[in-house]
């Protein structure tokens, strides 16, 4: 029987796709996403000894998202605009007739996601692409569950508007 893999590999390698996906969507290109994940892994290695159980994916994704937002603030300061949750409270979904989102191809959907502010993009990527629960997303982004719900709601409304304008709806 081979030796037990070190905790670091157990914590990180099975979650590397999820880590890269989040970093890639936040950074906007392959090169910076790889840098962010590598730096996050160095941090994760330092923190691994202090990992006290729980969900290893949430644990790693929290490190990745913090690394990514630090990077964004430094390199894309105009992209990171803090939004107060009061502003989010007044969200009205449009009561327009159902739209044919099935006509939207991957290219249009990618552009729509990229048009979102990072916090909202993060919430949607974790919810729809990583299939995480509100609770898990709240842990990763270190915000209350209510904020996660508001961000997802607002992100979806903006996505719907974007797709309508692009005529895929």
């Amino acid at each position, binding site marked *: 029987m081979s030796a*037990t893999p070190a905790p670091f590999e157990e*914590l990180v390698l099975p979650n590397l796709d999820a880590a890269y996906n989040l970093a890639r969507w936040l950074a906007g290109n392959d090169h910076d996403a790889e840098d962010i*994940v590598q730096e996050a892994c160095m941090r994760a290695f330092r923190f691994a000894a202090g990992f006290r159980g729980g969900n290893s994916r949430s644990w790693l994704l929290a490190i990745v998202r913090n690394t990514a937002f630090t990077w964004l603030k430094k390199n894309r300061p105009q992209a990171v605009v803090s939004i107060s949750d009061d502003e989010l409270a007044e969200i009205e979904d449009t009561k327009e007739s159902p739209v044919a989102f099935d006509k939207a191809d991957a290219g249009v959907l990618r552009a729509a996601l990229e048009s979102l502010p990072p916090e909202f993009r993060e919430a949607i990527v974790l919810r*729809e692409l990583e299939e995480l629960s509100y609770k898990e997303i709240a842990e990763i982004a270190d915000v209350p569950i209510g904020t996660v719900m508001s961000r997802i709601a607002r992100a979806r409304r903006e996505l719907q508007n974007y797709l309508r304008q692009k005529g895929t709806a």
Partner: protein
Amino acid sequence: MNCAEIHPLLHAYVDGELDLVRNLDVEQHLKTCSGCAANAKNLRLLRAALQKNDLAYRAPASLRQHVRQIAGERREKSGANENNLLRLWQWIAAGATAVAVLAICLRPAGISPQDELMNEVVASHVRSLMADHLTDVVSSDQHTVKPWFDGKLDFAPDVKDFAADGFSLVGGRLDYLNGRTVAALVYRHNKHFINVFVWPATGTNTVTEENTNRHGYNIIAREAGGFNYYLVSDMDENGLGQLADDLGK
């Protein structure tokens, strides 16, 4: 409930995040309100479009390689420190009494066979996820997976699909645990993979039932119908417990 009350709940509703009572409230309202029903349908269509278009990026092989390298280098460093410590201890031991030498030679207390087995279980689970060899036989059909084990094992594991409870059978493979060949059944729950290791429970080889967590993975050990079951996954303990209950039926 009226539209204004339903409205803030609609996203949580399509995300399956509402408790049973409020879920029923929303369903009831949607039956009678075409406006809210249209909103809900819109949200579902958007979710479906995002999920079916393969928008997730996957880590490039070069990155995976690089991260393995980081881990290797770091471990060598910490390994070197341990070696220095070991030498220090040997030096102390040499100058100490025979009792002290004996104490150092003794196996560290607290590592029971079950503990070691738990570590093996996590190691096997992680290997199965890392090396792209999750399954040797890929099928959601229990009638394909079960016969696949025939002739490869000296026992016939019970293979069932629990898709109705959200645990779909992905396949099976052979693994090696506790000094013997065991069956590994692989289930999927949303994005979580679950390895279920199965082998016959005989006398002293019967597991001590327990729920535990190692390195972020939940493990449940159970005995049912003459078999030992070890369930391991990164999913939460309650969810994993449900699969354990299903397997035990």
